[in-house]
């Protein structure tokens, strides 16, 4: 340990990783795609640098180039990538192999697919010391177990013999992190390591990364589209646009005084927990990242930049220059000095329009959905899965009801019942006068189908790749409205206009569209029948922040014009805060808190809401509150505890009453209700006191992979 400190100081002079004018291209049939035109940055030993930017900005290419894993088409055409002084781009395969996994390790976005499905966790972990250190099986095994303990997997030895599919997403990512750190690398590359994980799981994984970073003194190259997660883990941040580092500096420098219009754009378009739709619409960044096949001569962001000046910005390459008075802060903008000071668009929540209470249009009461768990062809395990367990909520006409919760909370089951894909086991759901809980979609009359439409998370998989946009929307118009061919075509054009796409999109196929455009098409299709209610199931979670802002604005505008009622399902609390009039927080098939958005987002909170809020990554270094980390795994939905569903993980659990007695729904002002044994007043005083102390001796339920329900 003593000499490692000395070594660190030595290395601090020469950076651990340095990109020097690295130019990376992919040779495609269409020509050379120059993804990285000439990138320079450095990363010191033990330092954590976050790379952010929209998709297509070259972040992942930087990560993979550092490992020289660019496929057969990709190469570093000029410049160098120095790691500990050696040029990665010019190493032999053997030298490269000695660095991969040992000096540089990587953690990937999707842990499930990054782990080999047919090998046990243990074998996959043990490989690393066996390859690099020639360790024998016993030594490697001991090391692997120790590593699994270090990433806080309970029963580490037991995990060794499990297969990846037997683990939950969070556990899988812990295994991947253990696998990366097992050889004590000096550089750890993390490519969107928490994307796709639940908020509370993400918070726990990020905490773990911070902790391990301190212990191992590894440098981290942290790639994310989420500014909030970067703030949590990194010291410095680099903003990438079209393969260029347009701005870099310490977290505080960049977040307090962003000098590049793109950085400002990214920060502005984020909904934050303080804002809502009654204030101002979200800022957006128009357009999309240009194709790497052809680059403009000047600033590559100029086409989308509100401050661009014809000539100065568009004729010659822009050099990156230091921001005056801030050491280490650089930006690549010629107008840097002229731009006004940036102000965080905190905005308060706008005033809720008066006389706001309208009659509920959608009302859900006592809704239950129980699945029988089956195993194979004939095997009925006799167990039942309670996906929804006595759910009550309502949405007012022309307003937005947001449903939040983590995976397995039942929010998607609710959407399926509403849309008629499955029918409820018990309880009612109505839209206006129509009861829909027990009616499958094929039994619903046409008029009812028109009333309710869906928008899904992944527009890629919901649009048929062989159908043109015009066909998709036209068919919905013909079937829902009974329009003829000609009038359907006119109406299609009008709908495209409504979602701000030009009429010639009608002739395009989905593969010619960007993610945001696809989602607009999906919304246009949903609007075809002039629905009263639109159910949007995570409609923006697969989109870049700038596109997300545009879609959110669009949904709000449409609601304003058409008085559409929106059931908005999301895991992103900032988006929910921004969009929602009412919020239902769900946990394990129950609504633990329900009320108007303004009230749900202020104390008293249900302890689960509180944990969710504290876990949500906040893109502001000055507002990093203490986080509540939820221990333990989600209880299996097959044997729900008799008491409060959240009791096994609740940091504010009062005692055995939580395990045995279902909590009462405490009714507060404006229909706000919280299902908790703790009195609302007490919750307020507890929660203003900050995060709860973590219980020292916690009764941890036997840890298990989330049950696979087939």
């Amino acid at each position: 340990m003593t000499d490692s400190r000395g070594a660190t100081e030595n290395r601090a002079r020469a950076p651990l990783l340095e990109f020097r004018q690295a130019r990376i291209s992919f040779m495609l049939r269409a020509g050379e795609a120059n993804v990285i035109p000439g990138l320079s940055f450095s990363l010191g030993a033990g330092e954590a640098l976050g790379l952010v930017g929209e998709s297509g900005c070259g972040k992942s290419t930087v990560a993979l180039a550092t490992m020289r894993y660019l496929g057969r088409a990709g190469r570093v055409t000029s410049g160098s990538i120095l790691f500990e002084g050696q040029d990665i781009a010019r190493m032999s395969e053997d030298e490269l192999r000695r660095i991969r996994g040992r000096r540089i390790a990587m953690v990937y976005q999707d842990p499930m697919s990054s782990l080999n499905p047919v090998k046990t966790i243990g074998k996959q972990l043990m490989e690393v010391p066996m390859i690099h250190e020639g360790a024998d099986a016993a030594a490697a095994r001991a090391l692997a177990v120790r590593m699994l303990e270090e990433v806080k997997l309970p029963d580490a030895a037991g995990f060794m013999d499990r297969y990846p599919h037997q683990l939950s997403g969070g556990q899988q990512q812990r295994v991947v992190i253990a696998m990366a750190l097992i050889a004590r690398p000096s550089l750890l590359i993390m490519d969107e390591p928490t994307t796709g994980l639940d908020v509370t799981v993400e918070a726990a994984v990020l905490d773990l990364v911070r902790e391990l970073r301190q212990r191992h003194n590894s440098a981290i190259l942290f790639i994310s589209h989420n500014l909030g997660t970067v703030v949590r883990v990194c010291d410095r941040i680099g903003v990438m646009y079209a393969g260029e580092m347009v701005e870099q500096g310490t977290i505080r420098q960049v977040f307090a005084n962003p000098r590049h219009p793109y950085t400002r754009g990214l920060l502005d378009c984020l909904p934050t927990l303080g804002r809502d739709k009654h204030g101002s619409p979200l800022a957006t960044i128009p357009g999309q990242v240009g194709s790497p096949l052809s680059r403009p001569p000047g600033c590559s962001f100029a086409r989308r930049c509100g401050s661009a000046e014809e000539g100065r910005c568009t004729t010659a390459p822009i050099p990156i220059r230091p921001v005056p008075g801030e050491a280490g802060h650089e930006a690549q903008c010629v107008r840097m000095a002229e731009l006004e000071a940036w102000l965080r668009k905190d905005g308060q929540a706008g005033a809720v329009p008066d006389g706001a209470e309208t009659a509920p249009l959608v009302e859900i009461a006592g809704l239950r959905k129980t699945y029988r768990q089956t195993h194979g062809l004939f095997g009925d395990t006799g167990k039942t899965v309670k996906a929804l367990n006595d759910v009550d909520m309502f949405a007012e006409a022309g307003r937005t009801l947001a449903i939040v919760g983590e995976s397995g909370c039942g929010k998607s089951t609710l959407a399926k019942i509403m849309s008629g894909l499955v029918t409820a086991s018990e309880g009612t759901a109505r839209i206006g006068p129509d009861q829909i809980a027990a009616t499958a979609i094929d039994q619903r009359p046409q008029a009812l189908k028109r009333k309710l439409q869906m928008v899904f998370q992944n527009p890629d998989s919901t649009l048929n790749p062989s159908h043109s946009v015009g066909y998709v929307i036209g068919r919905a118009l013909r079937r829902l409205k009974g329009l003829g061919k000609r009038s359907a075509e006119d109406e299609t054009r009008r709908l495209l206009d409504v979602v701000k796409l030009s009429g010639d999109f009608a002739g395009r196929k989905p593969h010619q569209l960007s993610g945001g455009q696809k989602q607009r098409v999906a919304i246009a299709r949903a609007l075809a029948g002039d629905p009263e209610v639109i159910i949007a199931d995570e409609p923006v979670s697969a989109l870049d922040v700038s596109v997300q802002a545009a879609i959110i604005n669009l949904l709000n505008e449409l609601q304003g014009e058409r008085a559409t009622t929106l059931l908005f399902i999301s895991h992103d609390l900032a988006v929910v805060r921004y969009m929602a009039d009412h919020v239902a927080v769900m946990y394990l098939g129950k609504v633990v808190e329900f009320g108007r958005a303004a009230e749900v987002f202020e104390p008293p909170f249900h302890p689960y809401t509180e944990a969710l809020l504290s876990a949500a990554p906040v893109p502001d270094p000055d507002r990093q509150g203490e986080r509540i980390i939820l221990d333990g795994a989600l209880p299996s939905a097959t044997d729900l505890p008799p008491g409060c569903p959240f009791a096994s993980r609740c940091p504010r659990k009062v005692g055995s009453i939580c395990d045995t007695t279902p909590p009462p729904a405490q009714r507060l002002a404006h229909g706000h209700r919280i299902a908790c044994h703790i009195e609302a007043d007490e919750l307020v005083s507890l929660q203003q006191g900050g995060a709860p102390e973590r219980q020292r001796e916690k009764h941890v339920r036997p840890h298990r992979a989330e049950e696979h329900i087939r």
Partner: protein
Amino acid sequence: MLRFFGKHALFMVVTLVAVSFLVFALNELSPGDVARKELGAYATQEQVDLLRQRLGLDRPVVVRYVEYLGKLFTGDLGYSQRFKVPVADIIFDRLRNTGLLAAVSFAVIVPLSMLLGVVAGMREGSVIDRGITMFATLAASVPEFAMGVFLASVFVVWLGVLPGTATLLSQTGGWSIPAQLVLPVAVIVLYDMGYVVSMIRASMVEVMQRPYIRTAVLKGMSFPRVILGHAVRNAMINPVTVIMLQINYLVAGVVVVETVFAYPGFGRMMLEAALFKDIALIEAGALVAVFVCVLTQILSDLAYMALDPRIRA
């Protein structure tokens, strides 16, 4: 595990009963009369009726079916009108011969196709990949009889190093049984392997694009270790069913090869039985073929479970 076998055994019995009835009924319905066929066109109707009576063909189908099932259980498969011996005597003999041919062929096909498929698929689009793909396509597209004749003319007629027939009688031209097997096995392997290689290659190409392969490479593993340690087993999951299906073909479908090389096998026997309307033999043969079919199904399920822990549950 016990439940797995119980389920499959039940399935097998049900299938066998159903098939036996179907074959029995089909033979009843098809035109032509065994007795007439046996006695020739010049026999009198009286003689035909007499034979029908002796064979018990004048009684209702269902009665005879039940009786047939009963006999099956005592091991009596009936009497072959074509070969004039009890069915049991000929069918097991032929099955043994075919089993030998099938086993040798299968033992060559599987490792060879795995090798070629994996090598081709591990670097998609490489010269090796293109070479193997071309060979596989070519091999699979040349008909068996053409391949048989071609190989025979090279090795038998021209070079004279192998026998042109494989009757399995040791006195045939003094060729040993292994030597007799070479050409039939070669034809079957070439013909069948082209297909299996393509399957394995396609699966391998897909596996090589999976993120866990990237994980393995970026762990610093050498390419051969990545292939052997991470890719091959995953790449075999999908083709395993197809590979097991080859057993069915090898047992009941190699009629052409058996005919070309005068091999006394099961396929050829079935062909002759069908041409001659040797009902007892057809029925027994069909049952055997179905039995093999269900058995390979079980084997492929087992292999599938062995390869992929996700379906073991």
